[in-house]
């Protein structure tokens, strides 16, 4: 078993780490405070080819695979969860859906500019009545000649407010439900009938855009149907599976940052005549953090390898998301405790990281859904079917 990263992945990590430390870190607090998306950083990443890291070079991507994408998310997650979220929504679910289910023409027309970062992508699924219960969406697409007319509202959407290209799930046959009644579409957001609604004022990841998107008689050509009519649900589930792995990677980065800050502070801060590092209570917190991070790292990169070698990965990707989000939350919580009052101050990054970490247990499929996915795979092997 060879657990080493390939030289190109080591080189990629070095480059991204330097970029994240020099270009993203200086603005991380500012974009959180101002609640703005750091387009200047996203454009730089586009120029470096990072916004297409996992897509093949023939489609304008970098060809670094899922391992490369996990490295990108880990290094960004270590510095700024907001930036990682912007990038993750663009690559991991927005463009990824087109890559997984698009035909050749759709890939050339839409995936290439997205991989090159010339355009931004979003993934439109969630609605006010359809969160975990994704199949309960109500956005409707009705066939009209060689077009489809879409009406409906999507909520809690990342990137939708500035994306050029979006993949949208809509109901095409209300009688059929998830199997056969839902279709995925590629839409160009400058098409009339697409409106950006209310922006969410969030607890964390305030450097990312979360908004409501309204479709009002938006006409989408039939050739923009992703995959086959009625098979949209399956297409979306495939994307979400891929996205789960890289969310785990972002959590890994965040947890590592929490550990690094904690170690530095424990070294420096003295109370009762000794540094905190000499206190067992602190040592144990650090040891627990480090152990979980090590386990998460092995999990994330093994799953990346499984994806890159064509093995089934749905269950283990769900584990990455579940474990990654919880490890990150635990780590930043312990880091806050170790830093004490200083960690609570808005002038120190822990407070922001704490607010940013919480969403990971909720979006991209709540951890409850992840547990159901994991359990259902386990029981299926024994002939037991579970319904959510």
């Amino acid at each position, binding site marked *: 078993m060879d657990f080493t990263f390939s030289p190109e992945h080591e080189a990629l990590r070095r480059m991204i780490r330097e970029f994240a430390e020099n270009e993203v870190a200086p603005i991380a607090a500012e974009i959180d405070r101002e609640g703005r998306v750091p387009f200047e950083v996203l454009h730089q990443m586009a120029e470096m080819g990072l916004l297409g890291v996992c897509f093949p070079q023939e489609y304008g991507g970098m060809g670094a695979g899922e391992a490369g994408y996990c490295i990108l998310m880990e290094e960004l997650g270590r510095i700024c969860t907001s930036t990682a979220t912007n990038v993750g929504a663009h690559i991991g679910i927005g463009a990824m859906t087109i890559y997984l289910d698009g035909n050749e023409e759709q890939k050339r027309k839409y995936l290439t500019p997205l991989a090159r970062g010339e355009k931004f992508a979003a993934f439109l699924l969630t609605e006010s009545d359809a969160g975990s219960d994704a199949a309960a969406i109500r956005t409707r697409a009705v066939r009209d000649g060689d077009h489809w007319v879409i009406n409906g509202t999507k909520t809690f959407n990342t990137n939708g407010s500035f994306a050029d290209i979006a993949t949208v799930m809509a109901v095409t046959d209300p009688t059929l439900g998830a199997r056969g009644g839902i279709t995925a579409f590629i839409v160009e957001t400058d098409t009339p009938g697409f409106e950006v609604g209310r922006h969410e004022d969030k607890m964390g990841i305030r450097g990312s855009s979360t908004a409501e998107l309204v479709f009002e008689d938006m006409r989408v050509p039939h050739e923009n149907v992703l995959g086959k009519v009625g098979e949209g649900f399956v297409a979306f589930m495939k994307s979400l599976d891929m996205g789960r792995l890289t969310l785990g990677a972002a959590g890994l980065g965040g947890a590592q940052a929490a550990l690094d800050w904690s170690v530095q502070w424990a070294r*420096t*801060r*003295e109370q009762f005549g000794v540094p905190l590092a000499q206190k067992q209570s602190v040592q144990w917190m650090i040891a627990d953090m480090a152990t979980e991070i090590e386990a998460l790292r092995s999990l994330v990169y093994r799953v990346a390898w499984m994806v890159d070698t064509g093995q089934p990965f749905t269950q283990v990707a769900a584990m990455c998301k579940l474990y990654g989000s919880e490890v990150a939350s635990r780590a930043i919580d312990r880091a806050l405790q170790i830093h004490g009052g*200083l960690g609570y*101050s808005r*002038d*120190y990054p822990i407070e922001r990281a704490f607010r940013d970490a919480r969403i990971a247990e909720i979006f991209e499929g709540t951890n409850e859904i992840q547990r159901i996915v994991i359990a259902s795979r386990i029981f299926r092997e024994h002939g037991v079917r579970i319904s959510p």
Partner: protein
Amino acid sequence: MDASFLDLMMAQQEESFEEAEGGGGVWVVADVEGGQIAPVTLEAVGAARTLAESLGAYVYGVLLGHEVTSLADSLYQAGADGVRVGDHPDLDSSVLESRLAVLADLFAEEQPEIILFGANATGAALAPRLAQRMGGGLIEHVTAFSLEESSRAVEAGFPVYGGDYFEIRACPEARPQFLTIEPGAFAKPFLDEYRKGDPTVLDVEPAEPATRVLGPAEGFEAPRVPLSEASVVVAGGRQVGDFALVRRLADRLGAHVAGDRGAWDAGVIDSDQIVDVRGTTVSPDVYVAVGIRGDTFHNAAMESAGFVVAIHPDRDASIFDVADLCVEARPDMVLPAILESLR
């Protein structure tokens, strides 16, 4: 005390002092700064004397420039046994080729054992070129040395990673051995005003300069060094009194101005100048804390500074726990005197 006896003794020394002949020896290539022999040159002559004594050799100086002949006196006073002077308008420091030509000819004839330069811009440009031309080994930025008697090779130490530790290297066989001496590393030798000599004037054939200085670089702005990467920082606290003194000290030292949170509260610095874990962490070579009490959050943000000077009126101020030199005084009582001494 009868001073005339002293004069007689000195006069005897003057007379008995002969101009040393050429061949071998420890040579120092002199620099001129502000119309005087540069301090680093004098330090190099002192270092050369130490080497020469162990080797049983003579110390020579080479002085190249325009209208510099009178400066040869300082070289004798510092300990040179012989001085060669090249005086010519083209031997101005920015024209490399003429100096190189004169030195190459001189050293080809004299065959020094060791040649010392100051580790300044001139030394950096000249020493390697000459070493390459003569097939000698070169060690730059030397801060200490010892002599390996058997091979007559200098074991020279120089700082690594800015002084975290020192590497020692030697040039056992190739001659001459070239060293550039780090300014301030060796003591300035005693200048014996009774030590005199008659410099030998060199024939100078100016060489064609290969590069031309066109003039000031219009509109060129060096990239701004952010506080987090500053190599010298002067930081003032709330208790400084007149913050202008802090700025003047920073100006004199070529340092960045900073402060603690108290200074920011008092409105004398901007928020990007706060040295604090909640602000900017600095790691300069030199940090001067003026009127800063020094709490954990400030101290943690400058703990990796190489050398810390702290001035504060309270003897129990925590800044003194992290400072190399501690001055228990009011800043406005000491700063003016420090500024004066730095002139």
